[in-house]
């Protein structure tokens, strides 16, 4: 279960890099396509957008003093998946016993503020962008909105863009959701 890609976004807030417009357009289109697959619950197609060595992390966010070294936990994770583990989640959703998603949640991913940098490896790009995720479930008017930043490493392959690494940094230390049975 070795994973290749690691976070490659430069530390701090990187200046926008000069990226050819056709690359920018292609990556943006890919991210919208991927979000659409999730919102339409085409999970089997979605999971194939990850490389075989991919890692998908949702770290625990902690309320700390301003001077603290970190507020994104370096160790604690809400999700820390390989592609195989993502496939387990998808297989689980496809059983008749994924009660948490039957009836399914209505989920919508909103993606903005896309910033693209060259990765460490030829053909890879480090992409930072904001994601807002809306979820409604059942007949209750209640809904959940999660906000976060995704930090992806996208790899160019003969089949198109693939996700080699994804970290989703959610903007709550106590999550306002009773379960994350949907993908952020």
């Amino acid at each position, binding site marked *: 279960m070795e994973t290749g890609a690691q976070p490659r976004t430069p530390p701090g807030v990187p200046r926008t890099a000069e990226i050819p417009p056709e690359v920018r357009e292609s990556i943006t289109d890919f991210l919208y396509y991927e979000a659409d697959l999730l919102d339409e619950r085409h999970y089997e197609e979605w999971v194939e957008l990850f490389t075989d060595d991919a890692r998908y992390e949702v770290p625990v966010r902690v309320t*700390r003093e301003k001077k603290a070294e970190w507020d994104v936990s370096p160790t604690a994770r*809400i999700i820390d998946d390989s592609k195989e*583990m993502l496939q*387990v989640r998808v*297989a689980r959703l496809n059983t008749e*016993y994924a009660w*948490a998603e039957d009836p399914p949640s209505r989920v919508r991913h909103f993606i903005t503020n896309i910033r693209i940098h060259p990765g460490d490896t030829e053909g890879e790009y480090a992409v930072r962008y904001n994601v807002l995720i809306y979820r409604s479930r059942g007949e209750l008017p209640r809904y959940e909105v999660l906000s976060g930043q995704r930090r992806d490493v996208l790899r160019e392959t003969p089949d198109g863009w693939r996700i080699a690494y994804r970290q989703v940094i959610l903007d709550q230390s106590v999550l306002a*959701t*009773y*379960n994350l049975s949907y993908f952020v």
Partner: protein
Amino acid sequence: MQTVNTASVPEFVQRMWHTLPEGRVPAKIFNDPAVYELEKERLFSRAWCFLAHESEVPHPGDYVLRWIGDNSIIVVRDEHGEIRAHHNRCTHRGNQVCKAEMGNASHFRCSYHGWTFKNTGDLIGVPYYREVYRESLRKEEWGLKPVRIDTYAGLIFGTLDPEAEPLDEYLGGFQFYLDFFLKPGPNGTEAYGPPERWVADTDWKFCAENFGGDGYHTPVTHQFGFQLGFYPSSGKTHFMGYAVHIPGRGHLIGIGHTPGLPPFVGFPEEVVEGMQQALSPEQIEVFSPARMSVGTVFPNLSFLIQPFSLTPKQPGLKFCTMRLWHPRGPGKIEMFSWCLVPKDAPQSVKDELYRIYNLAFGPAGTFEQDDFENWTNLSRQNGASSAADFDLAYFQGLDWEPLKDHPGPGLAFTPYVTEIGFRNLWGTWLNYVSTPPGERVDPSRVPPAFHPPQ
């Protein structure tokens, strides 16, 4: 403790003294504003409540912010290494003096008028002390209000009741079972990173009960695990094992057995050696054949050890999760979920155990997702007005007899799937919420959880 404005006891709670011994629990206790008020006044103000694991505050000055009932509590290790707990409330105007979940501080300074407290709680700084108070304020009387604490095997508990019995007595022999979760080696456990926290419209009591040993729900709620080939046990033997409770105290545990499993199966080799050193022969007799084990310390702290793997059809490793079902209102909780790892284990083993825990538990956990789907829905249903007249079926094991040769404390029954311990759990709860402030909670008043035929 609050001694005025005594909360009123709803009719359905009073009725429970008669219905519980017959195996019926009023549904409304699981989501009701009056019940929540009673729990704040009579249960969480008197019980020993879990605050933190010692490994969360390893160094002098380390602190975490936690709760007892609706009270914010600072748990801090002082400069001499002693762990202390204080109310997070400035003694001048009541402001929160600590606003971070965790950190390191030699002192806490109020952001309103600047009163400053050492991490021991002592008041050491008062702006314009001479000019305004003319030195009449006795600083030694105005430190942060301390909270009485005690520890067991790395767990820090606190109580707001100065008269509460010692923690050892409160645990009442349940330490024998807690050791399985807390003593995987001579140096015990540590929390792997800060806990995952989230909120749910769920009553804490369903969670505490489920983790008291609800083996009944597993083959249905978590059927996906069987379907994908994750479990070493088949559904046919799933109910086998033992259910133990401590009468009058509420604590309970389920110990699932699968015939033919080798002893300590699923624990890494290094951990098995540590357990053999740390556990007594009687504990080894009870726990070495266990497939899994799940238990609750009354009222709202639970533990689970179960095997799981990152992909299906693997032998699996046994991880340990500790969780606090913290009440945040009627039918509402805030969850704290930790993974406990053996302190003596190599880092690679700790990392692997955490990753396995993570796939199963926490807000995105494949088990936890479905539990919260159920618990949220049933909290909603039991909050409905008609639930006040509705009793839930708690009949399992009503006429069973306890095992005579069980080597541990408490009363043990077989098989593991039964509701006997749940009746003791809710009897203990009933005893607390029925005992008015100022009176002692007497464990002998808890009705027996079973009635063997004469």
